[in-house]
């Protein structure tokens, strides 16, 4: 066994560090309100406008926007451990990076798309010119994704789509929906779903904001009223969407904001060191120490799950329950971290960032709200536990 990085990995880690130092604005990490694991502030990257565009552009130039892609499609051709290092460092600096198009759309098109589709979409995705939003969930289709009802009917060379999608994160600042629709209502639920790319500007698409409990517009509900889409936008074969969708889940196992947990934890620890109560630093109080130590231990454990998955993938092993465990552990850590931060700050924790009395830019206060979404999005904790129980432990379904 060896728990250290290889020389090559160390050099790569330094390259990423240097890149971030050079390319990210100096006050970025302070200003960015992202809470590790949360979805509530994701679309706020857009608030930074040109800064994000510029950074994304530089990432694309280095092939790091599509870091998991093979070299032939403009990827970086790196090992999984190197990708893990990349994601760890980037999330530590709260840097913007992969999206739905680079993380899910692109890789799926590579594997199942036609040559024409690859030519049309991949180069633009790799350059960061096209952003997708994920159109899977519907008002009555959450965890039970295969029950989706949004319908696409063939009409000559087109599909005509009718229905409603919900929780479209950043749909309002994206270009196209990466969308699952029902194309065969007579088939069993899993066998009548297709994947299709739908332009946001198509007539009949209405995007309405949903304001989340952080007070931000990150989600949308999107209505499709007789939306006409050319059949060439269907990804792979008709009615195989469910299979593609499951395969896509495998692509992004390492896109976990693992570094964000460490970063935020370090900031809370610094606050505890610098804040005195009755002449004694908070960090010297046994009860505070106890709480912080608990979090430190859990972050270490989460990191071990993370590196372990990268190691497995490089070995050619297939992480199965490991991915669910990592999702479960890190998202629950997201809540524990927020709660511990709030407890350390006490009264001050609840003051929002517009006040001179707030601390850490009100980051923890916002995180306390945002962390709710971590255990819900991308498969709830219950679904992760079901996967662990049924797929991992072989427990019966009924």
């Amino acid at each position, binding site marked *: 066994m060896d728990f250290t990085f290889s020389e090559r990995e160390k050099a790569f880690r330094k390259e990423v560090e240097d890149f971030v130092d050079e390319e990210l604005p100096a006050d970025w990490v302070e200003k960015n309100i992202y809470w590790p694991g949360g979805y509530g502030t994701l679309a706020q990257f857009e608030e930074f406008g040109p800064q994000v565009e510029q950074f994304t552009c530089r990432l694309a130039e280095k092939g790091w926007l599509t870091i998991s892609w093979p070299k032939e499609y403009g990827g970086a051709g790196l090992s999984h451990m190197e990708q893990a290092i990349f994601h760890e460092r980037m999330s530590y600096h709260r840097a913007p990076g992969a999206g739905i198009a680079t993380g899910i759309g692109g890789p799926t098109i590579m594997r199942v798309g036609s040559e024409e589709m690859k030519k049309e979409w991949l180069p633009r995705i790799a350059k960061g010119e096209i952003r997708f939003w994920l159109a899977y969930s519907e008002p009555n289709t959450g965890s039970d994704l295969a029950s989706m009802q949004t319908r696409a009917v063939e009409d000559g060379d087109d599909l005509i789509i009718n229905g409603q999608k919900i929780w479209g994160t950043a749909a309002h600042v994206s270009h196209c929906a990466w969308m699952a629709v029902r194309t065969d209502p007579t088939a069993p639920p899993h066998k009548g779903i297709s994947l299709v790319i739908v332009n946001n500007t198509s007539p009949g698409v209405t995007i309405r904001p*949903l304001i989340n*409990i952080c007070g931000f517009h990150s*989600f949308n509900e999107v209505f499709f009223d007789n939306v006409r889409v050319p059949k060439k936008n269907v990804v792979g074969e008709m009615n195989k969407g469910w299979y593609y969708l499951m395969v896509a889940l495998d692509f992004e196992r390492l896109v976990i904001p693992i570094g964000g947990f460490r970063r935020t934890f370090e900031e809370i620890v610094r606050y505890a060191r610098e804040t005195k109560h009755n002449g004694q630093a908070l960090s010297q109080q046994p009860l505070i120490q106890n709480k912080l130590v608990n979090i430190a231990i859990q972050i270490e454990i989460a990191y071990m799950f993370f590196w372990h998955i990268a190691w497995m993938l490089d070995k050619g092993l297939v992480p199965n329950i490991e991915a669910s465990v990592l999702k479960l552990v890190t998202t629950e850590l997201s809540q524990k971290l927020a*709660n511990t931060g709030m407890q350390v700050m006490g009264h001050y924790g*609840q003051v929002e960032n517009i006040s001179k009395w707030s601390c850490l830019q009100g980051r923890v*206060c916002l995180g306390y*709200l945002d962390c*709710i979404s971590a255990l819900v999005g991308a498969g709830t904790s219950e679904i992760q536990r079901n996967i662990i129980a049924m797929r991992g432990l072989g427990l019966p379904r009924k």
Partner: protein
Amino acid sequence: MDLGLSEEQEMLKASARDFLQKECPKRLVRQLDESDEGYSSELWQKMAKQGWMGLVFPEKYGGSDGNFLDLTVLLEEMGYNILPGPFFSTVVLGGLTILAAGSEEQKTEFLPKVASGETILSLALTEPTASYEAASVKTKAIARNGEYVINGTKLFVLNANVADYILCVARTKETKNPEDGITIFLADAKSPGVKCNLLKTLARDKQCEVIFDNVTVPKKNIIGKPDEGWPIVKDVLQKATVAKCAEMVGGAQAALDMAVNYAKERVQFGRPIGSFQAIQHHCANMVTDVSGSRFITYKAAWKVSEGLPATTDVAIAKTWTGEAYGRVTLLAHQIFGAIGFTMDHDIHLYYRQAKAAEIIFGDADFQRAIVARELGL
């Protein structure tokens, strides 16, 4: 033993639930949360007509002679409906302090006005150290020409923004014992030099920074005796802590009720999600937490109501209930899934309150330390 509520208390509970559901719908709760005042004078007057503000005052002060346990019942319902406004600060923090330690003259002057809904009170205790210990009271009051002049900054003061009078806890003497030399002043909120800044907080409860800049208060407005105010503060803190627990029990019950109803209605995989063990276990955990919290809260409230020593019981109630409310609202959020993460849904109102309630009057660690001390550790 009799662990049930009296017939009158059951009636009070039922009528409070009905009244609040009718008069304070969630639409109004949100509206008040977003407003600067944080309360509706129309609703405030209706509450006064119900006799709520005077519930625990003797009849001669315009009250209805109820006891602290009656107030606990009412507060649980206020927590259930997440009633915004200055009831807590006016009746629990202000009214009970005047009732316990005020002079006959002060009681006659202020309590009937509180009971009638005319006067709103606030207690300015905590300062930028955010501590509930006597040593943290740094705001100074100096005697001058038969008056006192107050200087200092109070922080996290509930409802000071709408208060007519602020009970200001100030230091009037420096001694080795920090509990000696503290005096409570009843300051007119409109006095020159009182500056109130509203904080925007997680729970949208109206917490303020109150700056006293050479504020003069007449000697007759001292509650209790000069320099001997700390035991009064301790007493009101104990009552307030139990009162907050009662609100939390109500809030946790509401979160549980909402989540269970939703689990019965929400269909996924062709059946109500409540039929899944994962959700069932969440609900079971919530019930356990809510029931446990109610038992220990009412035990502590009963002791306070009877005037029995209650230090340990109150600390245990606050430790457990504070953490349980957090757990319950978090599980409720988990059951509601994505829809609960929207501003339009009600559950986040409870989740926000849970944290504010956990913090105020000493969080679980603060309370655990009291328990440890009382256990002789």
